[in-house]
């Protein structure tokens, strides 16, 4: 790889210098392709080809070790009667509904809190970003320990007289806990996006509102929110797509089987469970993946449409 590109570069060097045209945009026809080739190869082989083969496999009964044959819509018909699929679809949908409003609003408030340049604010900004930096596995294990029957949260709850709560043993509490962890880990990431947007809000707007006698809350609603609305839509789109594809948080907190009776399984967990291993049903897992694609594209379109409607 390295040697071939260096010979190519010396080749173009010799010929490039001899041509006398004074235009930056002209060069040998091959060199742009040499620049783009590594990226195109990686993306083509490991992203686009697998994407196409997922779409194709969804209509076959391919397994890990067996090539499989075309079976038409059989996989999708089976999905309709698969209880685990409906559980996965329900949980992934609930995840979007639970996580997205929190991730649109809380990081904005956090950004407002760290926006002002008071002494030590750089430390707070970086510190709030720590959960984003940490691996999801670390985050998952930390929260499993915190929410354990004997963990810190329950010790505190007992100390203040509430009593212990089985966060990780109840199906719904487990899902809620996983959502809380997703929000906790995402706060810092979206905070940065909002900080960049807030930096562009003209201060005159705030001053004008102040002169008109608007309080902090009023100014937030009438100045800040409209000014960062497109960023809120972006955060909504990003977080809803990510939430629908949730895997690691639930996998780590509920275990590979998805909690009690698999009731906390999400769609991507189901893809991982059915499609891997020596007996993996690649075709069926691909059909579930296709459902994931369709829903995420629909979510994006929905959010973007909502954005356009409010503009009109």
């Amino acid at each position, binding site marked *: 790889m390295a040697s071939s590109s260096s010979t190519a570069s010396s080749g173009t060097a010799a010929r490039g210098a001899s041509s006398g045209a004074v235009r930056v945009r002209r060069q040998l026809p091959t060199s742009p*392709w040499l620049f783009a080739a590594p990226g195109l190869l990686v993306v083509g082989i490991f992203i686009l080809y697998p994407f196409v083969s997922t779409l194709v496999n969804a209509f076959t009964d391919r397994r890990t070790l067996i090539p499989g044959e075309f079976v038409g819509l059989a996989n999708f018909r089976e999905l309709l009667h698969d209880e685990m699929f409906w559980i996965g679809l329900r949980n992934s949908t609930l995840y979007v509904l639970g996580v997205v409003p929190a991730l649109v609003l809380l990081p904005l408030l956090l950004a407002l809190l760290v926006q002002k340049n008071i002494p030590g604010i750089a430390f707070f900004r970086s510190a709030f970003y720590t959960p984003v930096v940490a691996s999801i596995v670390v985050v998952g294990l930390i929260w499993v320990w915190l929410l354990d029957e004997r963990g810190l949260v329950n*010790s505190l709850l007992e100390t203040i007289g509430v009593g212990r709560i089985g966060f990780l043993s109840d199906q719904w509490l487990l899902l809620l806990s996983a959502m809380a962890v997703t929000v906790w880990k995402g706060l810092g990431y979206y905070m940065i996006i909002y900080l960049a947007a807030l930096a562009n809000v003209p201060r005159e707007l705030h001053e004008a509102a102040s002169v008109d006698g608007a309080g902090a809350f009023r100014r937030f609603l009438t100045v800040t929110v409209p000014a960062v609305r497109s960023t809120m839509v972006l955060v909504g789109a990003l977080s809803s797509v990510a939430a629908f594809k949730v895997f690691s948080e639930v996998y780590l907190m509920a275990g590979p089987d998805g909690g009690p009776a698999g009731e906390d399984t999400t769609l991507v967990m189901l893809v991982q469970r059915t499609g891997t291993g020596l007996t993996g049903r690649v075709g069926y897992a691909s059909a579930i993946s296709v459902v994931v*694609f369709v829903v995420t594209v629909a979510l994006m379109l929905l959010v973007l449409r909502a954005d356009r409607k409010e503009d009109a």
Partner: protein
Amino acid sequence: MSVAEKVREAPAAVAAAPRRKRVTDEHGRSVRVWELALRYLLLIAVLALTVGPFVWQLSTSLKGPTEDIFSSPPKFLPSDPTLHNYERVADTIPVWDYAFNSLKVATTNVVTNCVGSALAGYALARLRYGGRKVTTLVFILAMLVPVEGIIIAQFTTMRELGLNNTLIGVVLPGCIGAMNVLLMRNAFLNLPYEIEEAAYVDGANVWQRFLRIALPSVKGTLAVVAIFAFMGAWDDFLWPLIVLSDPDKFTLTIGLNYLHGTFANDERLVAAGTIIAVAPLIALFACLQRYFFRGVGEGAVKG
């Protein structure tokens, strides 16, 4: 103005008030004391929520085998701090080998992403050739493909190439991220043409212009790509979980999950393992956060 620039301005604003130390906001107006107190109170509360869990994990990892880690009310400081648990993790799983595997994967990912996306980004932004639009579209499409949905097909592709259960297989699918290519493209687009034009007149060919002129001007974006590439590879869980089956080749994240599954009854060990996994990243981020906040701020403002 980027976030980092503002941060640097803050001390100057404070020093500018000669008589009394005065705290000002981003517009140079003074901040009332009670408002400032409330702000710090909220900041500290959020700090406790975001960093507290890591500190608690660190505390647990330093508690000795005889100390009660389940006490109520909880004890935040270890009564007799010890590094014993870190030795025991290494006895239980080859945690340093796993860390080394993660380091290899993450370092390779940084190099390939920086080189590959700079090259491709330069072609997209600065070179004119038939098929440039198609190439751009390929990278945009690749960015939109949800990785979670194609993971099974990526796995079968890797099997066909005979690379599953290898660290190369862990690195390859993300070794040149489409998003990084587009980030670099935007960075190169923002450079003025005139400089390159002058170099061209002086006889510099395309590779020389790329290496000597364009690349040094986009160091900030390159740093962001590097940080994201390192974090992404070091933190990744789903893909290594699928592609690696041999415990010798586990990366740290997979090894930790394994540790959790096997020794869930001793939280001190799991805590020590997680601290080993998170400490290098926090250190790296603490060193580079200046570039990071500036780079992200610039990208968001200009993009």
